[in-house]
C-alpha cells in the first residue's frame, strides 16, 4: 500500500515505523530512498496531484515483482504543497540480501518517475505551475492523438 500524506513527509517517523514493522522478518538489507526538494530555479516548493486508483495498481504490480525476488517494497508520497528542503517522496526495499535490494530500488525509483500517476507543479510567487518540461509521458501515451 502506498502511504499518501498531505504536505511534507515526516521521514524519520515513517522510516522508523517501517524498520520496526520489518525488523523481525529476517530481511538482511533495508535500503531507503529519500527525495528532498532542492532550492533551484527560484521555486518556493513543489506541489503534487495524485491519482490514487492507478497508483495503487502500479504499486501492487511492483510489489508482486519484489515478492517474486523475496523482497518487500514500501513507499510514501506527499499530496499538495511541499516546501524546500523537506521530503515529498520516500521508498524502501527490504530483502534477504543486499544485491536484490540495490537492484530493486534502482528499477523501482526509475519506473516511479516514468509511470506513477503523480503530477508535479512548481510553486513560485504564489502560482502553481505544471512542471511539464520535467514530466514524462506514461507507457502507451498518445493513443488518442494518432491519425484516425
Amino acid at each position, binding site marked *: 500500500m502506498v502511504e499518501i500524506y498531505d504536505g511534507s513527509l515526516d521521514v524519520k517517523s515513517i522510516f522508523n515505523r517501517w524498520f520496526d514493522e520489518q525488523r523481525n522478518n529476517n530481511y538482511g538489507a533495508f535500503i531507503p530512498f529519500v*527525495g528532498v526538494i532542492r532550492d533551484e530555479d527560484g521555486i518556493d516548493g513543489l506541489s*503534487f*496531484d495524485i*491519482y490514487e*486508483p*492507478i497508483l495503487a*495498481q502500479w504499486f501492487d504490480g511492483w510489489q508482486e515483482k519484489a515478492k517474486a525476488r523475496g523482497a518487500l517494497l514500501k513507499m510514501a*508520497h506527499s499530496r499538495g504543497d511541499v516546501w524546500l528542503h523537506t521530503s*515529498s*517522496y520516500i521508498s524502501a526495499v527490504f530483502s534477504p540480501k543486499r544485491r536484490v535490494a540495490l537492484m530493486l530500488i534502482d528499477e523501482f*525509483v526509475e519506473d*516511479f*518517475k*516514468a*509511470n*506513477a*500517476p*503523480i*503530477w*508535479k*507543479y512548481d510553486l513560485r510567487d504564489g502560482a502553481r505551475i*505544471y*512542471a*511539464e518540461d*520535467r*514530466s*514524462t*509521458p*506514461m*507507457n*502507451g*501515451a*498518445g*493513443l*488518442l*492523438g*494518432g491519425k*484516425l
Partner: protein
Amino acid sequence: MVIVEFLGPIALAPIELEAKTLGDVATVLQANALLEPWLGKCAVAVNDNMVKDMGYLLKDGDRISLLPPVCGG
C-alpha cells in the same frame, strides 16, 4: 454514454459523449482545440485500467481517464 475525465494539469471538467470504441472518443477529443495539444502525450485508462488498444470496445457508463505526462518525487 461514456464519461471522459482529465487528470492532473489538464484542468477541464469531465465530458459525456456517445462512443463505442476509443477511436470514437479520439474523434470527438481531437476536434476540441483545448484538448488536442494534450492527446499526443496522454496515456488512457478505462475504469482505472490502462488501455493501449484504440479498438477497445466501450460499454455504456464506462469512465475514460486521460493521464498527462507524470513526474513524481
